[in-house]
């Protein structure tokens, strides 16, 4: 498995190699990787990539996945990408 060819984030086109390099640079939490790679910031909102990244972090840090540092959960809607006009209409 060539990490250059494994796509972890389809929205932002981020490979496993990108993730591993960023972890090596010291971005050792989901929240930091998101901010440095834009992983999880695309239309899927992290629903595809988050668990893959957490597993990668857990392996790198050699800890169980629930010990990987995350900030307190903040929900950032919408759950699915939604056009502005939907909300503009509701607001009238």
């Amino acid at each position, binding site marked *: 498995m060539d990490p250059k060819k494994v796509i972890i984030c389809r929205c932002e086109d981020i490979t496993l190699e990108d993730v591993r390099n960023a972890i090596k640079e010291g971005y050792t*939490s989901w*929240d*930091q990787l998101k*901010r*440095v790679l*834009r992983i999880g*910031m*695309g*239309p899927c*909102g992290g629903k595809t990539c988050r668990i893959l990244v957490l597993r990668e972090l857990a392996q790198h840090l050699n800890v169980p996945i629930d010990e990987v*540092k995350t*900030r307190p959960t*903040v*929900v*950032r*809607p*919408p759950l699915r*990408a*939604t*056009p*502005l*006009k*939907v*909300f*503009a209409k*509701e*607001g*009238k």
Partner: protein
Amino acid sequence: MSTYDIIIVGGGITGVATAYELAKKKAGRILLLEKEFVSAGSTGSCAAGIRAQFGTEFNIGLMKRSLDKFEHLARELDYPEDKIELWQGGYLVLAYSEKEWENLKSRVEVQHRLGIMTEILTVEEIIARFPQLNLNGVYGGTFHQRDGHADPLHTTFAYARAARRLGVEIREWTRVEGLVQERGKIRGVKVNGELIEGEKVLVACGAWSSHLMKTVGVEIPLWGEKHEILITEPLERAFAPMVISFSIGYYIQQRPHGSFIMGIGPENPAHWHDPRDFDFSPTWRFLERMSQAATSVLPMLKSVNIVRQWAGLYEMTPDAHHILGPIDEVPGLYIAAGGSGHGFMFGPVVGELMAEWILGETLSYDITRLNYQRFQKGELVREPAVVG
């Protein structure tokens, strides 16, 4: 002798920029403490805008210098240009009343005097240049090309990385529980119940700063105010400037990455002094108000997908200016906070000047009027060009 010469509390733009500038001046052993990770607070939640179109000479002068720094930042910090994402597509400020129009035009005179070459545009001129806009209710606008965008996350990471290269120690996921003084002088900070000693301590933790200052009995009039923001899916470049209205309170900009980022000021914001009250939950009401404002001024956005909304804190002060400088009651203690919605864009210049101040050098731009005592003395520094 203390373990550190300077301890900085807060890993936002202000903290990391000051750490970098201090290290560049070989200020000794520097420790930066951040309760989550670098950029996790207000810096990383902000709208990424940078502008020199302010109302007071003081702010225009400072932001002119900050823009100069942003224009050379990637090289200075040895960080990829395409990550800093500097984009100078200009800020287009729209006026929605005769009075607002007059005010905007009067500010341009001051801006010109200071070398900020803002253009005054009639409604016809705006339409000719930016045909995507719906200008219903607009009286005119001002435009300054050098204003625009920089990525707050990568800019902050760039400073942090450069600071580390120069020997600054940065500890993330490390919460400072309190400041420690001894015989009326700063002694250090408390982490996990233990003292870390520092000759000097700079508090640069945004809306969290006033709470921390209280641990040594210093009252700072600074509070957190919730502001919401959203971002869309990325599109090909379709619109260049940040379009902004101070009276309606909206701002919208397409980022170099392609997504549109936008916000609108809160209706009745609470003033939060205690971090336990800080609330980052997104609201439905914001989505409605924002979508209405955005689709009205930029109808092309109607079918564009929102992918994320979030909230962050403006770190407000009574006159919407930073609070900067030494704390007289506790020698060795300094504050740099209170950006009031502009902390990121002022960050590079504030970092430079705070480093001078902390090292006792002559300030290359006089920011002494932003001292914390101005509120007691009634010497407020009013800024009219604030969103929300």
